[in-house]
């Protein structure tokens, strides 16, 4: 191999996007060993450190689910997802992006959703439900794309509405005016449109005058919390498990009938964007344990060690290579002895259900909201 001249500009650009931790990496390879998506992280970082574009701006960048398992393992605190993101921005500028993500971008621009669906259908999930649309309310319930359009995931939204109404929560949804959070736009490395979208969304949120935003998907949280502040003032954002936990703390709920959860053994999977990104581990467990009679079992690799389902970082749109990471997790859930794997992320629900289908497993996948809502009417949440 002939000697290559390092691309200094490139190295500087990538390093700038990572607050300088690029140079902390001493190439131990722990990240690569632990990566559930088989991304060659070590060599990508090497390429960025030394300034060899072809090594860094590789197709493998798009296999990364941005799960941060590598960061938990990294002995040097390298901002690995920051490096991946900077490289994706560079890749996007050269238009080296997966086609499916490029079409998702167009969908967000034209239909307000990265998930397949039409703008005018966005609020169909709420038809016939007792829900305030676009009006003033204390809380704004934000669905994001997948839960708005996917029939399986709409059940999570329905569950939340049931729970909120039973608990007298004053909330509203944006309905047809709701637009994508822009997570996929961010993940693809597009900046110009993201700015416009974020600003427009912030205006939209503020128009409802809510105290806070309650999200269904931890991926909405991720982009609202980490990216939006750059573009404007967004109200405080909570994932619904945090909100339900708060409701329990304040005693704002009727106690449940004794043993309503009898026979239910649940294991809880920590979604990457709720756990590793949001630091929310105990609240969902608290909500589940509050159900009288329910037994909670832990899987191997829980909390900050949870195995990614493969859905983040644009993963729901890009075909993954190799063994699906969700399969390993389903096996762990089965091994825990639980009959239900509970999770709190729409992407996890879909990926694990696919895994269960493919593996022929008998374990049931449910979102926390669905479990709780299923028991509402047996005495509130």
């Amino acid at each position, binding site marked *: 191999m002939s000697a290559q001249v390092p691309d200094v500009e490139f190295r500087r650009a990538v390093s700038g996007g990572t607050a300088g931790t690029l140079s902390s990496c001493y190439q131990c390879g722990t990240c690569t060993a632990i990566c559930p998506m088989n991304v060659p992280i070590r060599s990508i970082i090497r390429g960025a450190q030394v300034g060899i574009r072809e090594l860094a701006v590789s197709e493998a960048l798009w296999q990364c689910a941005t799960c941060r398992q590598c960061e938990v393992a990294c002995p040097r605190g390298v901002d690995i997802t920051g490096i991946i993101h900077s490289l994706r921005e560079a890749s996007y500028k050269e238009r080296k992006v997966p086609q499916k993500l490029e079409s998702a971008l167009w969908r967000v621009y034209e239909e307000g959703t990265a998930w397949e669906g039409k703008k005018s*259908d966005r609020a169909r999930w709420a038809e016939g439900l007792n829900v305030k649309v676009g009006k003033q309310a204390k809380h704004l319930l934000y669905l994001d794309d997948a839960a708005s359009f996917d029939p399986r995931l709409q059940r999570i939204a329905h569950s939340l509405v049931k729970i909120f109404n039973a608990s007298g929560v004053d909330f509203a949804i944006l309905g047809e005016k709701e637009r994508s959070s822009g997570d996929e736009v961010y993940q693809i490395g597009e900046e110009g449109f993201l700015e416009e979208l974020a600003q427009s969304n912030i205006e939209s949120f503020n128009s409802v005058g809510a105290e806070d935003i309650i999200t269904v998907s931890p991926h909405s949280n991720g982009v609202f919390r980490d990216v939006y502040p750059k573009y404007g003032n967004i109200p405080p954002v909570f994932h619904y498990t945090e909100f339900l936990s708060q409701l329990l703390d304040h005693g704002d709920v009727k106690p449940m009938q004794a043993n309503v959860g009898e026979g239910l053994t649940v294991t809880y999977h920590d979604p990457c964007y709720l756990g590793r990104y949001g630091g929310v581990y105990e609240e969902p467990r608290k909500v589940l344990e509050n159900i009288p009679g329910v037994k909670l079992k832990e899987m191997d690799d829980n909390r900050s060690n949870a195995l990614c389902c493969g859905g983040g970082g644009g993963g729901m749109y890009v075909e993954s290579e190799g063994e699906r990471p969700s399969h390993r997790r389903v096996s762990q859930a089965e091994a825990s002895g639980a009959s239900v794997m509970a999770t709190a992320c729409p992407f996890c629900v879909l990926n694990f259900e696919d895994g269960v289908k493919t593996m022929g497993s008998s374990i049931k996948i449910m979102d926390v909201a669905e479990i709780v809502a299923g028991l509402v009417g047996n005495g509130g949440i």
Partner: protein
Amino acid sequence: MKQVVCLKVTPKIEQIKFDEQKKTIIREGVENEINDADKNALEAALKLKDSVGGTVVVLSMGPPSFEPYLKLAVAMGADDAVLLSDRAFAGADTFATSRVIAAGIDKLRPFDVVYCGEASADGSTEQVPPSVAEWLGVPHISYVSDLALVGEKVRARREITDGYEVVEAKPPVLVSIQLGCNSPRFPDFRRKRWADKEFKLKMLNIQDLGFAPTDVGLEGSRTEVTGLSRMRSPERKREFINGAEEEIAKRLVQIVRG
């Protein structure tokens, strides 16, 4: 290499409603978008420009409200935009539409390749591209999924029923591009901001194109609509089959076996 891409701005089909009483189409409040196949056409032109250089001009026939969509096309990479706009152009069928579009393209001579999307999402007649080609007196290669410049000729892969062809022609030539054959590039938003603020497109009206009112629009059309109706579906049974998977499967087998 000078390329011209015809764009149509179409209503979002799913938002269109039909007034059963008046038997008319309700367009109020319906949002527009660039016809999907035309995005593929623009992408094909930009791809060719990426490899051989030259310029890409987008052209459309419509009211001034089409301007933002032409600017979006400029943000995608088009160098210039022309809007053929005049009240007299309205109500045109494919004959009158293609005539006006061809006249607009004529003003851009000499050109090498003209692109059209294979069909529009609303009318979907697929007639404008071949008609424009005939008005311009250039050969037409239809249902193209890929093309390249080979020597001085355009070489196109053409999708046909049950197969494909590879066709060559010397420019000038018109190609109609197959829906979904490529991935249209997302606009460069920095360029979009510039286009929105600074870019001025060229507008041509009936006099600029040298037409009389009888040549264009509703008057110049060769066909007319005498009535509209909702597509009537035969009354379906709509019988829901419920029960356990096994029961459903057994019932379906009964239906299949007649």
